[in-house]
């Protein structure tokens, strides 16, 4: 931003100041609390599902993770399809964006939005418009973390799974 401002004329710079003074501040604290509440609730639901899988489904602690994630994704997709997830998100902010349900929402909403453009280029390609960057940068981050482990903890083999 600093560079951009330097290129601006004095009149533009003066206007930026005026515009900034008129801009309502984002309610950071209340956003944080809401994110904590909704994000926490989603994780709590996830944990409840996981415990249920372990208690009633005969899954081990390690195996119960995958079906739990699948159910959370399914719930998120259903809420997206019903047009509810975006309304929750306006209130919850990061709380509904960060958990796996937010990722599912980004894919489902893109698929719904682009289905009018056909199955291949619409749903197929459109689905990853938002999710694509998460996958790319998630993989890059995982690679870097992997390198760090390889250098500093040579004996670590990773756990696999999710």
């Amino acid at each position, binding site marked *: 931003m600093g560079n951009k401002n330097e290129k601006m004329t004095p009149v533009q710079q003066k206007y930026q100041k005026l515009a900034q003074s008129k*801009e*309502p501040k984002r309610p950071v604290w209340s956003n944080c609390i809401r994110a904590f509440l909704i994000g926490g609730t989603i994780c709590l639901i996830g944990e409840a599902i996981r415990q249920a899988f372990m208690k009633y489904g005969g899954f081990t602690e390690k195996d119960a993770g995958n079906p739990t994630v699948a159910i959370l994704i399914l719930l998120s997709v259903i809420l997206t399809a019903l047009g509810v997830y975006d309304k929750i998100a306006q209130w919850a902010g990061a709380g*509904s964006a960060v958990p796996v349900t937010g990722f599912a929402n980004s894919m489902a909403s893109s698929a719904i*939005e682009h289905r*009018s453009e056909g199955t291949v280029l619409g749903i197929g390609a459109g689905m990853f418009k938002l999710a694509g960057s998460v996958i790319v940068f998630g993989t890059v981050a995982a690679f870097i973390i992997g390198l760090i482990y390889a250098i500093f903890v040579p004996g670590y083999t990773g756990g696999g799974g999710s």
Partner: protein
Amino acid sequence: MLKGHQSWIFENKPKIVGRAAIVGPFEGDGPLAEDFDIIHSDLYLGQESWEKAEKTLIEESANLAVKKAGLNKEQVQFYFGGDLMNQIISSSFAARSLNIPFLGLFGACSTSMESLALASFTVNHGGAKYALAGTCSHNASAEKQFRYPTEYGSQKPPTAQFTVTGSGAAVVSLEGNGPSVTSATIGRVIDMGISDPFNMGAAMAPAAVDTIQAHFRDLRIDPSYYDLIVTGDLAKIGYDIAKDLLREHRIPMEGTVYKDCGMMIYDYTKQKVQAGASGCACSAVVTYGHLLNQLERGELNRILVVATGALLSPLSFQQGETIPCIAHAVSIENTQAT
């Protein structure tokens, strides 16, 4: 006739002989519901895509405006229209079925008054007996093109504006009855360096003020000449800035009432729209529905509508470009009353 630097006076007083304002369900829940000709309860309008729904909106209002003028489509010489979609497909696809010779315009949300100014100019100078001006926007198609998928859960900042689903159209002619279009001021493109597409009001406010200033300078009149001056879709933040700028430029707004269409169409307490409304249809439905009804009832006699447009593209803001903006002003008067 050219007056001053960038304004036209329509000395033959072309009249708005037919007009229509059609909106979607969310606008129908707002405070101006009574002023709209049709309120759709289905955001899809029975179509299979948002884009087709938007095209249907403008088709309907164009047909209705022509019908209310007591005409057939064949009697209308030219259709001036535009919208927000890439390559203005809503308007050109509507023109395909309307079958009226078409001039496509792009002025983003200023298209409502850009088209009315050009239609009035054409009629005033004998270029057409009847000319149609119209524009439309759709909340979901605009969200899809400019922002995120409609169902995507992203939190909108308090400066964000809600695109109006609707369309407005007007038939202009020298013959017939209706309020007269008396003058127009064509705006310059102004860029004050705002690059945040979630803060369009702040980006557009300087353009609105520039055009308002030019209008009064060119016509050598005072703001008190008008009962009401409205800007198109500045919403809360842009409106606030515009008021500050008008004061700074010493434009005496005390003698008139200044409002913004983007703050009139939704109920802030019940409808969560952040800063307010935006979109081509915003100023179009407020003008062709609400304001012209008020003019007809004699509650207003002279109004100046300053439609504002942000000339960005989905590509330009991703590349970090600032947002160039424009505003066009058109004055509409009850000539019977004067």
